[in-house]
């Protein structure tokens, strides 16, 4: 989908653009995983690490945006190439936002307000693992430009949304049972919301994969036979 140009240099430039975005995706995935773990274990060090690496995520974001501009300026892509370059840049934006959500979770941990109880930790751990799985699958579909896998991500995001709603209800119940838990519940609700947003970014990423990878053509090349080929000048 990204290769096969007569200009192999263009193939190379597109491939390297794609690979660098996959790399950025790996970093963001790690950020999400680490932030969720820092929250459930309530330890500052990994959260601190997430904050430090956020600069790297931003660096990827700005460099890849520059790279997109250069590709457009130098290659003047059209059709599938243009859609792919725009979609890949949109993937970069989704990843950057997912990274921001990880940063928000990390900040909550660093502030060390009220420590969440075991039930809340369990909810966050559960939603965190769903969000990580979703983002990982979305990245795999992006890496391989696998449209079918992208469709699975989009379907699975609904499950994450439902888990988020259920988690929120449990938080509210606990807060109502014990009003001292209100501030914990509030912070935990923000963490859950961030994880739910990460799931949304994974879903959007999968949609961009669909726009790159799908076959948008109505007729296969074989429709050109037989007279077209027999008369080649």
């Amino acid at each position: 989908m990204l290769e096969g140009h007569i200009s192999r240099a263009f193939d190379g430039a597109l491939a390297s653009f794609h690979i660098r975005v996959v790399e950025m995706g790996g970093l963001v995935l790690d950020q999400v995983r680490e932030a969720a773990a820092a929250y459930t274990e309530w330890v500052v060090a990994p959260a601190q690490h997430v904050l430090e690496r956020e600069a790297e995520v931003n660096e990827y974001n700005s460099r890849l945006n520059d790279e997109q501009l250069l590709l457009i300026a130098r290659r003047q892509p059209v059709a599938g190439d243009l859609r792919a370059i725009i979609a890949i840049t949109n993937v970069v934006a989704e990843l950057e936002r997912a990274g921001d959500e990880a940063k928000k979770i990390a900040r909550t941990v660093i502030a060390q307000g009220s420590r969440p109880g075991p039930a809340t930790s369990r909810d966050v751990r559960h939603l965190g693992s769903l969000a990580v799985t979703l983002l990982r699958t979305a990245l795999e579909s992006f890496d391989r430009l696998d449209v079918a896998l992208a469709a699975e991500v989009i379907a699975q995001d609904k499950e994450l949304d439902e888990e988020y709603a259920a988690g929120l209800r449990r938080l509210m119940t606990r807060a109502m049972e014990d009003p001292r838990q209100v501030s914990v519940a509030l912070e935990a609700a923000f963490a859950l919301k961030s994880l739910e947003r990460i799931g949304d970014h994974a879903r959007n990423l999968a949609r961009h994969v669909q726009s790159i990878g799908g076959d948008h053509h109505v007729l296969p090349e074989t429709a050109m036979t037989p007279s077209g080929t027999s008369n080649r000048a």
Partner: protein
Amino acid sequence: MSTSNESIQERKTVDAVSASEDPSRKRPVEAGLNLKPSGRVQAPISLDHKTGDRTVGQFTVDDAVFACRDVNVFYGSKHALRNVNIDVARKQVLAMIGPSGCGKSTFLRCLNRMNDTVPGARVTGTIKLDGTDIQGADQDVVRLRARVGMVFQKPNPFPKSIYDNVAYGPRIHGITRSRADLDEIVCTSLQRAGLWDEVKDRLTKPGTGLSGGQQQRLCIARAIAISPEVILMDEPCSALDPIATARVEDLIEVLRESYAIVIVTHSMQQAARVSQRTAYFHMGELIEVGETDRVFTNPRHRLTEDYITGRFG
């Protein structure tokens, strides 16, 4: 052509039925043509892009100046163009793109019967200009070429003065009665071609003394001096630098307010910049035709995609 006309009618009926089933359609579009009796007939893919013989996209338009149906061109035994069906719309630019030898220039030359001058060339099918087939033996070719002007790849001003280059057409076609009329036509044509300010003080100087870009605009002035309905352009900018190219492209944008323009170009970017519709030819067949905005963002045929993204060959 009676057989193909019948099949056009048949397809129209079928299409009207299927179109009426889809509430999203505003009007039933004219049917795609399936001129082959069997075997190679393609089922309609969906309602808004028809298959002609093989053509993907909407090849008919509402306000057609040219309606070409089942056009075939043979150069001796070589079948250069196969079953081309396409309309040319008034006040629009139609760009024809495709690799060398794909038939786009051959098709362009059908529109003012330039193929008549090629020994052994044979053109079949109907090419209607305002409803009249230009292929008829009784058609006056000189009159046709006055209605369908042409601009070539290499600027070819006559070895005469700038004034006479533009005045030549109106003179031989007897369009003007007086010198004052002629002056008027020369002046307006040069103005419309965006050349007036550059040449108004040297109208008696030879046209060949102008720069390449100016010569090309002079040829365009010469073409519009006889008030054609259609202007054909065969790679009009391939010999020009980017600035002269931009001037000609800007001129095309202005001219399309008055004329239908058909342009053959090897520059995809040029096709994307100047045209409203784009037709992609490949090995003598019209593969895809559609709105330029769509063809360059979302071509429907794999071959079109491969060509415009540089994957062809």
